[in-house]
């Protein structure tokens, strides 16, 4: 009958991007499932780079208090996927931390 044909033909369109962190075809790909290590499927939330937001240009090795925010308890440098720092700033941060370690402002390996 005519009504059945109409019901079958076109389903109602889905609301577009109600879940922005789950695109239909992931071009960038959710970085979560590959390296999340476990059942985590999607990005938690969009972390922003602290240096870009606050417009800090100068990442100095002498500024121990700022560098310590990016160093774990054992003295290891925290990866940027956890801190949300962008790549150029992470590179500068890493060289600043390594210089600070050399001049005994930060430890190489702590307890």
């Amino acid at each position, binding site marked *: 009958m005519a009504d059945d044909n109409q019901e079958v033909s076109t389903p109602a369109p889905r609301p577009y991007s109600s879940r922005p962190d789950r695109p239909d075809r992931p071009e960038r790909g959710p970085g979560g499932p590959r390296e999340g290590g476990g059942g985590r499927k999607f990005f938690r939330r969009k972390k922003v780079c602290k240096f870009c937001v606050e417009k800090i240009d100068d990442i100095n090795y002498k500024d121990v208090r700022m560098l310590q925010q990016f160093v774990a308890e054992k003295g290891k440098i925290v990866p940027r996927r956890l801190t949300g720092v962008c790549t150029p700033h992470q590179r500068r941060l890493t060289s600043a931390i390594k210089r600070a370690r050399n001049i005994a402002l930060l430890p*190489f390996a702590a307890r």
Partner: protein
Amino acid sequence: MRTYEVMFIVRPELLEEDVDKLIATMQGHATTAGATVLSTEKMGKRRLAYDVNKCSDGQYVLFVVSGDGKAIHELERRMRVAEQVLKFITVRTDEEQQRLDKVRKIRAAHTKRPPAEAAAPAAPAATENPVASA
């Protein structure tokens, strides 16, 4: 001429005047080698993050030096020989300063232009209103 920052750690048990004497000696070495010491800063006694030569504290001193590579090499050699200097690090800063100056200039140009454009249309609009009401 390049600009360098030289930071070194002095033994903690040295007295104030001995540290000053050592700083003066180092400045003399730099000048003899052909560099100019732009500024000196004593950063005080700090606890070291790890033991260096069996010392757990140290006095930090910072020099800002302008010179060429050979002069800095000579200064480093003297520091290596001096037994009161525990550790030193030399960082070249002129290129980094250039980059920072460029970034700051661009940022200043960005922030200066929009307020100027916003002020111009706002001023004639403000003057028109009292004229219209009168």
